[in-house]
């Protein structure tokens, strides 16, 4: 009998092996933790002032890099977003060393709560931590910021609650939990209100998910957009393009 048309043992084994390999590769790739232990603390951090030519309100926001850097990078993020964590751990350190610390660009951290119920409260935590350390110890904000992303577990958004963020805050050197709690109570509502206008700018730029970036040339007004955890090379290329535009 010709093999053609029959289920042969050889083909069954190949198919079985292929399905197992496929499943194995998918599972391995999915569970591979690309996150390294390193996190980025910029050489310079400053609080933004005013509204930029791209209509982003930077007043009092944490910005990594030199105040007079020619390129603004608006980074919309969510502490509950795994893809943002990937950007923070895999791309930001190199981007920071090569472009922020060198004075080419500055990066403004802007909340875009979109993943889970606790996304907005998490953004308020971040803003209150920054308010508390902005003048005295801005590096503490970046340590807190990295520690908050490091809390993300393997899967899901259930991890994010008051207890977890309080613990992260308490454990971050230089951050006073009680001051941050007071800020959340007293300024929480106004912080929430101030999140929305900047999110609207992101939406107008058709950024539909986090992490989202707009690269803006402060002199020429040229802008470019990146959505998602792109590899460092794509950021370098985009910065170059916007710089020349």
């Amino acid at each position, binding site marked *: 009998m010709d093999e053609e048309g029959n*289920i042969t043992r050889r083909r069954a084994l190949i*198919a079985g092996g*292929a399905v197992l390999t496929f*499943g194995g590769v*998918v599972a391995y790739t999915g569970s*591979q933790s690309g996150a390294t232990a390193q996190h980025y603390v910029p050489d310079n951090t400053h609080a933004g002032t005013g509204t930029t030519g791209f209509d982003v309100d930077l007043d009092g926001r944490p910005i990594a890099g030199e105040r007079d850097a020619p390129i603004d990078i608006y980074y919309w993020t969510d502490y509950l977003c795994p893809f943002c964590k990937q950007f923070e751990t895999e791309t930001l350190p190199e981007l920071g060393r090569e472009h922020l610390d060198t004075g080419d660009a500055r990066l403004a951290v802007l909340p875009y709560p979109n993943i889970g119920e606790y996304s907005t409260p998490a953004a308020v935590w971040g803003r209150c931590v920054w308010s508390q350390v902005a003048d005295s110890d801005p590096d503490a904000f970046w340590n807190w910021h990295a520690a908050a992303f490091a809390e993300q577990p393997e899967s899901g958004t259930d991890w994010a609650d008051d207890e977890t963020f309080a613990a992260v805050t308490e454990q971050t050197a230089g951050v006073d939990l009680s001051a941050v709690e007071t800020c959340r109570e007293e300024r929480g509502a106004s912080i929430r209100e101030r999140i929305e206008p900047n999110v609207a700018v992101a939406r107008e730029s058709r950024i539909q998910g986090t992490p989202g970036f707009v690269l803006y040339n402060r002199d020429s007004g040229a802008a470019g957009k990146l959505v998602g955890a792109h590899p460092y090379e*794509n950021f370098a290329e985009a910065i170059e393009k916007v710089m020349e535009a």
Partner: protein
Amino acid sequence: MTGNHTATSRDWTRDLRDALGYPLTSDARLLSAAVVTLATYVVLVLSSFPQFSVQVLTTDPTDVGYAVTALTREVYLTTGYLGLALVATYAVLTGVAVTNALALVQRARRRSASTIVGVLPGLLAAGCASCGAGVLGALGFVGAMAVLPFDGNLLRLGGIALLLFFLGRAGDPRTCSLDGGGRA
């Protein structure tokens, strides 16, 4: 009544087994199922964050590996192993459904009309697979997943159930279903 029901479900199970086994009947069919499976997986995963995928691929098409790896991890981080397993299963079933549908279309071309009833479930399976891929992808959109029951896994499960149902209805594409499972 119950007896009929049991017999029907036994027929369906047998037909499903035949349908799933069909790609094993030739090297070319096996290859086509494998290619379609991989292609479906790539499309499903990339469409979980279309803006990012389009940007990465337009910047450098050779970065497709990076995009698929990054988004596979994203699917896992958002929906866990179950979500990832459902996407992979969906891809495999689509590979089988499309291979079987190709066989059905070829057979329908050789024979004259009147085979439409036999061809229909197979085509529905393939259609359901390809349309489901888009729907699942669109709903797999990062962020939107969180508002769906079980982070969208329920929807993926539904897609797979529908695919299995149509595959079982179609059976082995070389045979013609008459009166709920009789062979022609």
